[in-house]
């Protein structure tokens, strides 16, 4: 088996593409990103890696704008992401030029996924070591969230997480995502932050949150706004813990 996983991406005897699987491992080492599709907003949240003392804070941006109405967050190798983002941005404009319409989320996701797949079947190249969460609004004002992975597959999601501890975050979302919970912008943001807080050390300073609304207005939340929501979430958690204690005490009696 070991002879098949070097250099070019080739099949192993039992049908694995090890290079692609190793790329997925690289993704699992990246910092967590979460995406939630609400009723009339889409929210992307990422864990900000702690920066060295002398490093300027804002040089690492993990949430990128591909077009007026398309946002992307990624987990994995930042340098690989740069290449994909550059090509996706060009494709968004190219499409606008030839078709006279902005890209649909599905189209641009398909483009990014095809690009990734091409690199799993080319000589002398390795797959991209990133998973992407691509989100935004289609021309008909429908919110969408897509996820792509290094193999080049893509799926649409209501909410998803990628990167370190993605499984934990996804399980939290599976338990707590309901259409009622994402009816308003406020609730959707709260759900996204709450999901991230499951795996990120608390503090608004460690989170970066972007919201995109129906009218394609993008806004990055200020640290103070994030901290406000974090405070609310923590208070709720404490109250929950307190009531649980009371119940167990009364049961014990």
């Amino acid at each position, binding site marked *: 088996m070991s002879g098949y996983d070097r250099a070019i991406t080739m099949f192993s005897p039992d049908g694995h593409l090890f290079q692609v699987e190793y790329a997925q491992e690289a993704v699992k080492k990246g910092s967590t990103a979460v995406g939630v599709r609400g009723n009339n907003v889409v929210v992307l949240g990422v864990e900000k890696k702690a920066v060295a003392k002398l490093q300027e804070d804002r040089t690492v941006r993990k949430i990128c704008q591909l077009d007026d109405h398309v946002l992307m967050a990624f987990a994995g190798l930042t340098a690989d992401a740069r290449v994909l983002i550059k090509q996706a941005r060009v494709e968004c404009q190219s499409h606008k030029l*030839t*078709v*006279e*319409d902005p890209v*649909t989320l599905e*189209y641009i996701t398909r483009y990014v996924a095809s690009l990734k797949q091409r690199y799993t079947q080319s000589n002398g190249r390795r797959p991209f070591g990133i998973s992407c969460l691509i989100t935004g609004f289609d021309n008909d004002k429908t919110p969408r969230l897509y996820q792509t992975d290094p193999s080049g597959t893509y799926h649409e999601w209501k909410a998803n997480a990628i990167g370190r501890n993605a499984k934990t975050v996804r399980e939290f979302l599976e338990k707590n995502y309901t259409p009622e919970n994402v009816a308003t912008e406020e609730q959707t943001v709260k759900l996204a932050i709450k999901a991230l807080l499951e795996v990120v050390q608390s503090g608004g300073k460690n989170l970066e949150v972007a919201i995109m609304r129906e009218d394609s207005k993008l806004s990055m939340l200020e640290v103070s706004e994030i901290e406000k929501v974090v405070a609310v979430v923590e208070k709720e958690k404490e109250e929950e813990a307190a009531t649980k204690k009371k119940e167990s005490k009364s049961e014990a009696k």
Partner: protein
Amino acid sequence: PPLADICGFQTPKPGGLVSSLDHDNEEYCGNFSANSTISLPPFANPGTNLGRVLKDESGNDIPMNFDHGTTTLGFKYQGGVLLAVDSRATGGMYIGSGSVKKIIEINRYLLGTMAGGAADCTYWERVLSKQCRLYELRNRERISVAAASKILSNIAYNYKGMGLSMGVMVAGYDKRGPGLYYVDSDGERTPGNCFSVGSGSIYAYGVLDAGYRHDLTDEEAYDLGRRAIYHATFRDAASGGIVRVYHMKPTGFEVISEQDCKELHYMYAAEKQ
């Protein structure tokens, strides 16, 4: 020198499983496999020099005229888009055909007209049909009129200056409603409410502009388009034959009428009494 060299015969490539018919196709009919990129004539400025390259037995130039000998028109109104065309094909003063179909059905929601070089229009509008269908399959929705007309105009621009002759209207119905674009071989692409293209367009415009309103009823629109083409066939030598009227509705296109212009002449004359 061997006979093979004199004849210009090339030994077939070794290991070639390609039959001689396929080989000829590859060499001389590249269009079958790559129909969106056709080979160019092997000299500079094909647009101007094509005629000069062709000389007859006495060494005289064969003039190749690409006048847009035709009349086509199209206009948007409350009921959708109306297209009306004549059906005469001329080569100089010779009438090649009196029953050419100058409206090309790209798909149920897209029509293209023909003016200029018949081969150029037909060929590239068929390539356009192929691209429109591929778009539908890839994106699971019908292509917009804007995008379809842009594909055609980008093709025309690609060959700009190389001798293509097309003056085409792309009409259709999409999410944005009725669409009408004028596209030509200079690379021009203009959206609009009312166009007429061809040598007889000057006559058609007169009648069209006099009677056009956005709130025409369907019957009034058919009559206006038909009359405008008829008047062009009357005065323009290069227009004639059958007057075809098509209506592009939200549900797709419908053929409204196909009447000989002679028949219309006597009909309109009788009305005057």
